[in-house]
């Protein structure tokens, strides 16, 4: 981690600083300060809390309490296995889809994109409930249909199992990998595949030996992020895992917060997760070591779709299958629930009603407020996160300062901290004076920014890796300042990637539950928290209706976003 990297261009930063008062240096200082405040400060606070008793005496007792019982250790192990399985399934879903959408003449690409987007904006909580209604072993629609067709008495699928949980989580997270891999594939020029073809490789070999290896960093960082997100997920494990008798690290953490609240034990329990992040970053470095992945240079390049005959329909079939399972079926069943007077009566005209919607809109004191909070917290934190990520990625990839890789670590660290723990870190660090942010919008926006900085950073850094410095150097030689170069050369080149990153952060923030649940006050409740509260009230009908309102609003915002940026935004037709 401490590998110094300044030997590449040692004179660069020095020259910049000495020739003219380059504002950049202050930006880097500010950046470091912000990252320290957002990431290091809450984490340090957590570390200190984990090493002290409530009375402030130094102790290792919290670690003994956190790992002193087999059940607690097993939960952590379960989470790791579950996350690995989720990431593996997500790769299997996402990479073929991304390749088909980006590199081939598969029909219906826009529709496939809509499906991916749909499964991405579907809040995990809703998806989980949809799958309970679909794949409950006794009454799930899929199993009812299966019994009717086959006459069997055993269910075909059971959501309340380890694999069931992993699949539901993968349905919710594969879009992350899809977006990463597709945006990387979009940048690979066909000339490389042509070269392979000329040398005698078929389409399949060219994809395997040339195209996919070129986007390997994106696949890897996507999979790592899905893994880390799965470790940190609270909602789905609570709603499916508890009935399935599966204890995960996050549900275990929740238990440490029960009365009597043992924040210090929870902090101790969370510390090894940080070691796992370190391990992941190490593995990633090891795997990408000494390989070049530059795909976009100043010399242009041509991108053509690979022509398939019947094969393109096979590809489309695969994409539709994933889309059907991840978004269409759950949304259909949730839509039915949201318009049902009584779910137990099944589908009937007399059972249809708008009451669940009118209740939320006209008779619920905080439903509309929670919608507004969700949108504005998510928008603000997405903007902050992307800005920070761009600047950090720039410093790191251009190796401007000695401790650049330390900045990268800071930017990546938050994702592995379970949202709950992150929230407690923020709570410990910012709730009390001198900050006194508890119950304010600011603490949630800051927590969301820190929590999703890794997504924005991974996105910005893999994008940055595809832009050769020669274009910036040209601008610098012609007298542009460092910040001017970023603003006029780098950022425009990365515009599409950055907007993609913004959108991803915005969407995951609208769905975010684990960080929000401990930081919201009565006047800052978000929809995810409201959905969580409703999920305990024995009423799926109202819950589904709220979910659909959230979906509709998110779609409107995404639509506006696409309109502003141009129709081919994240949907490049090669």
């Amino acid at each position: 981690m401490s590998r110094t990297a300044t030997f590449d261009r040692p004179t660069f930063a020095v020259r910049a600083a000495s020739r003219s008062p380059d504002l950049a240096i202050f930006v880097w200082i500010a950046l470091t300060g912000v990252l320290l405040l957002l990431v290091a400060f809450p984490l340090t606070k957590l570390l200190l809390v984990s090493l002290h008793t409530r009375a402030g005496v130094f102790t290792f007792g919290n670690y003994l309490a956190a790992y002193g019982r087999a059940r607690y250790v097993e939960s952590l192990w379960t989470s790791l296995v579950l996350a690995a399985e989720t990431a593996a399934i997500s790769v299997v879903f996402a990479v073929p889809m991304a390749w088909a959408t980006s590199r081939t003449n598969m029909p219906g690409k826009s529709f496939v994109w809509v499906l991916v987007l749909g499964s991405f904006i579907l809040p995990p909580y809703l998806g989980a409930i949809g799958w309970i209604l679909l794949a409950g072993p006794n009454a799930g629609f899929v199993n009812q249909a299966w019994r009717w067709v086959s006459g069997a008495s055993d269910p075909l699928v059971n959501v309340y199992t380890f694999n069931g949980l992993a699949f539901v989580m993968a349905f919710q997270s594969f879009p992350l990998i899809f977006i990463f891999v597709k945006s990387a594939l979009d940048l690979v020029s066909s000339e490389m595949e042509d070269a392979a073809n000329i040398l005698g490789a078929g389409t399949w070999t060219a994809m395997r030996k040339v195209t996919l290896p070129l986007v390997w960093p994106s696949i890897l960082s996507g999979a790592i992020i899905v893994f880390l997100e799965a470790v940190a997920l609270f909602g789905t494990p609570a709603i499916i895992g508890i009935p399935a008798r599966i204890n995960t690290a996050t549900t275990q953490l929740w238990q440490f917060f029960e009365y009597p609240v043992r924040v210090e034990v929870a902090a101790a329990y969370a510390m090894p997760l940080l070691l796992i992040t370190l391990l992941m970053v190490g593995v990633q470095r090891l795997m990408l070591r000494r390989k070049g992945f530059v795909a976009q240079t100043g010399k242009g390049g041509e991108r053509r779709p690979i022509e398939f005959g019947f094969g393109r329909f096979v590809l489309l079939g695969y994409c539709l299958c994933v889309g059907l399972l991840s978004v269409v079926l759950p949304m259909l069943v949730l839509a039915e629930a949201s318009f049902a007077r009584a779910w137990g009566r099944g589908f009937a005209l007399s059972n249809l009603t708008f009451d669940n919607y009118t209740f939320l809109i006209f008779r619920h004191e905080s439903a509309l407020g929670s919608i507004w909070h969700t949108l504005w917290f998510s928008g603000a934190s997405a903007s902050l996160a992307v800005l920070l990520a761009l600047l950090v990625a720039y410093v790191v990839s251009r190796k401007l300062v000695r401790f650049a890789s330390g900045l990268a670590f800071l930017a990546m660290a938050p994702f592995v901290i379970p949202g709950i723990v992150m929230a407690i870190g923020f709570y410990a660090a910012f709730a009390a004076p001198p900050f006194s942010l508890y119950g304010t919008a600011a603490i949630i926006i800051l927590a969301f920014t820190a929590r999703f900085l890794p997504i924005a950073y991974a996105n910005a850094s893999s994008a940055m890796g595809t832009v050769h410095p020669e274009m910036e150097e040209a601008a610098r030689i012609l007298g542009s300042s460092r910040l001017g170069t970023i603003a006029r050369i780098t950022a425009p080149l990365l515009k599409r990637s950055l907007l993609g990153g913004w959108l991803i952060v915005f969407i995951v923030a609208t769905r975010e539950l684990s960080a929000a649940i401990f930081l919201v006050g009565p006047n800052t409740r978000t929809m995810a928290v409201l959905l969580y509260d409703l999920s305990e009230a024995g009423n799926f009908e109202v819950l589904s209706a709220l979910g659909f309102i959230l979906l509709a609003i998110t779609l409107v915002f995404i639509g506006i976003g696409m309109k502003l940026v141009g129709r081919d935004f994240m949907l490049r037709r090669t």
Partner: protein
Amino acid sequence: MDRVNTPHLSKRSLLAATAALGLGARAGRAQEMPAPERELYEAAKKEGEVTWYSGQVQAETGEAVGHAFGQAYPGIKVYVIRSTSQVAYQRLSQDMQAGVAQCDFFSSTDYGHYLFLKREGKLLSYRPHNMDELIPEVRAVDPDNMFQVLNVGLYLIATNTRKVAAADAPKSWKDLTDPKWIGQEAVGHPGYSGSIGVMAVTLRKLYGWEYFTDLEKNKPQIGRSSDDPVTLLNAGERTVGLGVSLSTTLLSMSRGNPLSFIYPNDGTLAVYSPSAIPKNAPHPNAAKLFMTFTASATYAKVARTFFIPPLRPDVPPPEGALALDKVKLIGATPQEIEEGVPEVKEAWRDTFGV
């Protein structure tokens, strides 16, 4: 005012009913109000709002109660923060640790919360003038008036009528350990639900912890809230729910869901649930007024339409439910609850694995 007692509930009639209550109140109430209440109202109006952390009633019920309060006392808004009781308590504890006051009125189903908060000196003493209108059992639960019992929840057994014929339905808690219910039962979790904690303490007292090790042989589906089984029964995923709230079951039945409930012959669980005003409540007068409202007949009538059993002799039991004194009730003492709930949570996790 009697319009609230409409036998068949629809949301529209309910809305009309609460509106009627409110209009009536607006016209005549200010003069009718007893002097202490009028003073309180004047002070509360300046505060303008009350934030209610509630683990006792469902979100929908809470919103309707808040709405009725706003109608009865124009100018004061109720923000309902509904969750399971343990989660509500967690939020309150967090507020207190951060030294930030956000909660005006705290309602949970775990008596232990109040005994602890009282010992810590975190509560504001208050006794509404209308407490003596309630049933004798709840008039003086705490000599220092740090909390008042303003809600009783009844928890019993529910079935899906399409899957379980009335004749086959279980008759008692004990029946639920019968192997014929294997794979069919659903229950909440004491780590989340306050009332399931009280249920576990009570059944342990009656039958020993073996009751739960026997229950585990039937592989019940564990949720979080005591209301979770209702959704599972509605969907037909499970057929028998234990420790299900009578109010939620009746509400779900009134919508047409295929549910039925049984008063167990070894006793229906009654959870007498306190409410309290935190000492640092940001809107203490509004909170006191809200507490007074919660003891009033107006509240009882609105809550009744959501099938909450009234604690007032002058308000009849909810449609389809028996009066409290007609039911064999079981329960646990405050001390048993405070000591027992942490124990049964731990034992539950050892027995059921979650």
